[in-house]
């Protein structure tokens, strides 16, 4: 923005941009709700009205619905841009305030208009050097502010409706790169699209765009929100079908009419009970997924916390979800958290909470830097401890994690971020398989928390783009963690213990955790709580994770 002054940065009000971001987000939601509400109306027309006029009315309503669908994308894109603007303005304002405070401490008066003068006591060589350094920092800050202003202006202009509505240009579905494509190829394809074409593919093919590594996170977020909303509605409808069928079977059983339900069955009552069991099982699975979707929705709509992005979503099978606290494409530090055994869509709330804490801890440790924390449930985690003895789940997830990390690099704006991949429990095994293939895992550091082994005998067996894995593979396991018992000595169920000295990586401290046994009571049963306590407040593991994520290796407590 031409004429942007130091004073404007010093007195900027990020809250105003945040309020506007929320308003645009609410508008997007309202548009989406209205589009959804039109669907049953369009479907009902043939029941009450036939003929040419009815056909034309149906087509018109359908085109209105599509127009609303297309309007959702730019409204949310503007919300994203304003939210980012608010965060960046807040950071720039803090930097400007810090500059003024540091100037005061060095004998340099920095006026609100940005002009500077040396106090009489500082008029010497040292004072002159300090002044020169502050001038440089002020100029860089003003350049960053102008750049941000331009980017936000462009995002708003590109997504603002014209007199003919929100323009979108058709793109053939077959031209979208298939799942599993090289993220660099995907990014090149994305860059070749016009803003109108991008809006079209997000609105029309959200199922393809949302999980495609190499598409920028802000676009994936909008696509996945569309899929999340559709899947939510489909699951609610399915639950209603299941409940209706269950009620019908029960009524027929109560009335002694099971034979009418299953005229060909030898044992109609047994068949009815068997179907009820299956219906109940499916209903509970549907409820679990809806619980996960609600948890994701709550976090996406929580504007008291840093903005969250839905980077991946799929409700098929056990479900997949990738939720990022902060936008990794703009962040200085990015930590990808891979959860472990038992994680699925129904339990996603706690894993998102952990990502929230890691983003917060990193911001506390390095307040001048932006850190994004990604909860990556992009693989099918084993359902229980017995399943977790198998390597199959880790092998299946390894390629997806590797490609996801490549995608983060491909879509990151500006200089490369400091990228860390952190696994908990079986999540560490997934990381191990990702980093022990022919190509290096795209990460500067690995953090292995409560690992049952990572499939290799030592740190040297893990390859990361960040360099020497003996220096950049970090591990911790609490003294009282049950996972220590998952094997013989340091030879755990999936290989050498990464937190053992023989592994050859960096070991950091975590709290001992709740004792496994309470020896005061010989009949007491084992207490596995320590396995879950790494993200507890005041656990030193959290401080250490923040130090590694922000690259403050010297502050890691061992």
């Amino acid at each position, binding site marked *: 923005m031409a004429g942007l002054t130091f004073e404007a940065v010093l007195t900027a009000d990020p809250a105003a941009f945040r309020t506007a971001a929320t308003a645009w987000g609410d508008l997007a939601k309202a548009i989406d709700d209205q589009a959804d509400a039109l669907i049953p109306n369009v479907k009902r027309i043939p029941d009450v009205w036939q003929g040419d006029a009815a056909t034309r009315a149906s087509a018109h309503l359908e085109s209105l619905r599509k127009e609303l669908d297309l309007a959702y994308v730019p409204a949310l894109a503007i919300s994203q841009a304003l939210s980012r603007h608010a965060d960046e303005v807040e950071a720039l304002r803090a930097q400007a305030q*810090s500059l003024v*405070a*540091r100037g005061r*401490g060095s004998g340099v008066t920095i006026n609100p208009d940005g002009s500077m003068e040396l106090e009489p006591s500082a008029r010497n060589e040292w004072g002159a050097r300090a002044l020169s350094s502050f001038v440089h920092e002020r100029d860089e800050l003003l350049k960053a502010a102008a750049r941000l202003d331009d980017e936000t202006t462009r995002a708003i202009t590109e997504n603002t409706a014209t007199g003919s509505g929100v323009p979108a240009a058709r793109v053939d579905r077959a031209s979208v790169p298939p799942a599993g494509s090289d993220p660099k190829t995907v990014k090149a394809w994305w860059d070749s699209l016009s803003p109108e074409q991008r809006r079209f593919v997000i609105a029309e093919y959200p199922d393809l765009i949302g999980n495609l590594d190499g598409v920028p996170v802000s676009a994936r977020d909008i696509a996945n929100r569309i899929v999340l909303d559709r899947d939510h509605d489909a699951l609610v409808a399915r639950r209603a079908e299941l409940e209706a069928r269950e009620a019908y079977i029960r009524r027929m059983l109560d009335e002694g009419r099971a034979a009418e339900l299953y005229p060909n069955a030898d044992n109609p009552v047994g068949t009815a009970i068997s179907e009820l069991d299956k219906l109940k099982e499916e209903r509970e699975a549907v409820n679990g997924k809806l619980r996960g979707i609600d948890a994701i929705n709550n976090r996406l709509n929580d504007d008291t916390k840093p903005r969250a992005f839905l980077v991946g979503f799929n409700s098929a099978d056990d479900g997949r979800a990738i939720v990022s606290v902060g936008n990794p494409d703009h962040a200085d530090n990015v930590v990808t958290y891979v959860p*472990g*055994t*038992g*994680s699925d869509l129904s*339990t996603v*709330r*706690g894993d998102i*909470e*952990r990502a*929230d*804490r890691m983003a*917060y801890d990193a911001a*506390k*440790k390095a*307040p001048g830097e932006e850190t994004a924390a990604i909860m990556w449930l992009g693989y099918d985690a084993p359902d*229980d*401890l*017995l399943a*977790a*003895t198998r390597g199959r789940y880790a092998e299946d997830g390894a390629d997806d994690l590797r490609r996801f990390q490549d995608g983060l690099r491909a879509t990151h704006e500006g200089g490369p971020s400091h990228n860390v991949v952190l696994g*908990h*429990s079986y999540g560490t095994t997934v990381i191990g398989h990702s980093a022990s293939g022919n190509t290096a895992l795209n990460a500067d550091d690995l953090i292995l928390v409560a690992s*049952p082994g990572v499939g290799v005998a030592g740190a040297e067996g893990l390859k990361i783009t960040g360099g020497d894995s003996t220096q950049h593979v970090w591990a911790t396991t609490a003294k009282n963690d*049950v996972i220590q*018992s*998952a*094997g*013989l000595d340091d*030879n*755990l*169920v999936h290989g050498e213990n990464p937190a053992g000295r023989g592994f050859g990586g960096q070991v950091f401290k975590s*709290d001992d955790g*709740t004792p496994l046994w*309470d020896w005061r009571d010989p009949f*007491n*049963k*084992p*207490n*596995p*709580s320590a*396995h*879950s306590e790494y*993200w*507890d*407040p*005041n*656990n*030193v593991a959290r*401080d250490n994770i923040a*130090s590694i994520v922000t690259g*403050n290796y*010297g*502050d*890691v*407590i061992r």
Partner: protein
Amino acid sequence: MNFTSLRRRLVIATTALLFVAGCDRDDPTGGTVSDSMTLDQASTRVEEIVREAQAALPPGIELTSRFEGSMPCDDPDDGGPKGRVFAERQYQVVYPAGWPVDQALPTVRQYWEQRGYKVIKDHQPGGDRLLSVENPADGFRIGIEIYARDSGRTDIFLVGSSPCVWEHGSPPA
């Protein structure tokens, strides 16, 4: 599958069964699984202990809330009673120019020790200070974190948390 691999799987299978069997154990914090304070009560109590620490510090400060939330205590596979959560609150200490920053840690340390709180964390990573204590009577924890920034500024945080509780005071039906 070789013999070593079989032995490993047997060990973890045994461990797994042990924990499945352990599902009905009492709450490790001392109560039974059937009663606890609610999450709201726990969160309120966390704020109280933070405010007590604020009152013990030299006057002139204000607290700015930086983080507030709850998190499930258990992983899906931990075998303990499911569904408990803990409350967490973090505040930044906003102090005026000239406020005795150096006295903050020794002052609250003495205050907490006088109340019989047990030190659970005491570290000095780089130029920072991290001190946390636990009240053995109820399991509530509080800590002070002091960060010496490169800019010369010192940031101080008070971090409080509750033990595991049932969100609504009792296990879900």
